[in-house]
């Protein structure tokens, strides 16, 4: 099955099925409309249409003075604030700082989570030794540890990076562990018959079998890293997107607050898309992977 083929077929089928009942829907099944929604670009258009409508209504409401600028600035003013921040170079700097923090934290926590998950998955001894502790620490909402981290590591970079790392650790740990442990026993039997050595057992059986779980863990870890970053930066910092938001809110520059939120949303979505792209590439072999 070719996924792009499916993209082309599905909307058309779904629409013509609904079409019979009402006239407005009948118009949606018009070939030209179908063509507009077909393929990748069509999907993008379909996804973007709701936000576009909301934006238009919002702008109208602001222009009519229904919403005070300090509570809900108009889209145009938000774009203006964005342009200002870009032109001064302030925004790029903040994004850079935030990305670096998130990246370091994620790499540290994610790598350790993956390594511990592998080790615990592969070795019952290792699991027995470490898993109870890890599960216990996991039950503490990691954001609740923030004050402790600030006490221990101060308000500098370390407390932020470590907070992010702590959050990124668990999803990758848990999912890698689960993935390794859920490898089909029937395939293990095959591997015994074919005389796989230990290396091949890991690289050609366990890792690929666990890959869907590992990628899920990766996605969740990235999400948590991002969340940790926001909290860490809002707690106190002198640069970064979180600082931008915190600082702007103190001066009631609501449009700048919105710019910050926009950046968080965009980068979050981007990192999520990156993992999805990875999944598409690496999990082509899966039955359930239609795209």
């Amino acid at each position, binding site marked *: 099955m070719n996924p792009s083929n499916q993209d082309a077929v599905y909307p058309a089928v779904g629409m013509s099925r609904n079409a019979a009942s009402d006239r407005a829907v009948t118009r949606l099944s018009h070939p030209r409309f179908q063509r507009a929604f077909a393929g990748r670009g069509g999907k993008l258009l379909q996804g973007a249409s709701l936000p576009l409508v909301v934006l238009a209504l919002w702008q109208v409401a602001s222009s009519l003075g229904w919403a005070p600028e300090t509570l809900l600035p108009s889209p145009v003013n938000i774009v203006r604030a964005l342009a200002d921040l870009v032109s001064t170079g302030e925004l790029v700097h903040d994004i850079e700082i935030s990305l670096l923090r998130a990246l370091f934290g994620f790499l540290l926590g994610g790598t350790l989570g993956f390594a511990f998950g592998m080790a615990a998955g592969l070795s019952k001894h290792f699991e027995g030794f470490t898993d109870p502790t890890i599960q216990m620490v996991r039950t503490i909402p990691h954001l609740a540890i923030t004050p402790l981290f600030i006490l221990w590591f101060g308000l500098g970079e370390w407390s932020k990076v470590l907070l992010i790392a702590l959050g990124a650790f668990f999803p990758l740990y848990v999912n890698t562990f689960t993935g390794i442990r859920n490898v089909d026993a029937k395939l293990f039997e095959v591997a015994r*018959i074919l005389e796989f050595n230990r290396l*091949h057992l890991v690289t050609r059986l366990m890792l690929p079998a666990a890959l869907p779980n590992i990628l899920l863990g990766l996605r969740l870890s990235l999400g948590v890293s991002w969340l940790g970053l926001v909290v860490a930066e809002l707690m106190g910092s002198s640069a970064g997107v979180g600082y931008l938001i915190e600082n702007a809110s103190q001066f009631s520059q609501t449009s700048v607050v919105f710019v910050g939120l926009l950046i968080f949303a965009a980068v979050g979505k981007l990192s999520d898309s990156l993992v999805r792209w990875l999944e598409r590439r690496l999990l082509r072999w899966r039955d359930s992977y239609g795209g």
Partner: protein
Amino acid sequence: MSAVTVELEHKSFHSEHGEVQVLRPIQLQIHPGEFVTIIGPSGCGKSTLLKILAGLDTEYRGSVWIDGQKVVRPGVQQGFVFQEHRLFPWMTVEQNIAANLSLRDPQIRAKVDQLTELVRLKGFERAYPKRLSGGMSQRVAIARALLRDPKVLLLDEPFGALDPFTRAHLQTALLEVWMRKKITMILVTHDVDEAVVLANRIVIMTPKPAAIQAVIPVDLPYPRQRVDGAFQEIRNQILRALSDQGVWTAAE
């Protein structure tokens, strides 16, 4: 070509309900290059027996020898094809056949190419298992076992999940492989026709706990015609033996 000697005394499973005996004493001498099919009522212990022959199950009393060597663990010498194809879903057809061996090794490469030809999978080397039909998947599984030059190939109802046409087709394909490679074959089936189409000798098992009820030699030339009088004769002989067990129903 290898001889298989089976001298089982006892096999049982332990569960919360206590001990359940699955196999009674079984003696069987299989000649080098022979094709033996094992038939018996479902649940009698055929898979259990085959796993013992493969070395996958070592919790039993008795012994199994291949060419005078005791089987103590699973390995490539005892090739195994399961009812489900058990391919690695993340590997393509040729990767599945090679599995832990390297396709970059020219010798392996050549053998894999030869085998894909033999099991008629040319053109599908790069396909993932999800794109294969049941029959094609089983052919990959057979090629995977053959690549390792097993001394004996054990097949546990390998065509049981396939439709009758595909099944007949794969029976022919398996016979072709057997005649070319002259590997000793032991195939479990619950299909009487299949047993007769393939075997030099048919072993009929009793209901659980299984023992050998009868061994029927089949001295018909290959390829065998199901409509043949002699074929029907052997077929009826098996059906009679199975109905003596009082477990045979018209439906089967």
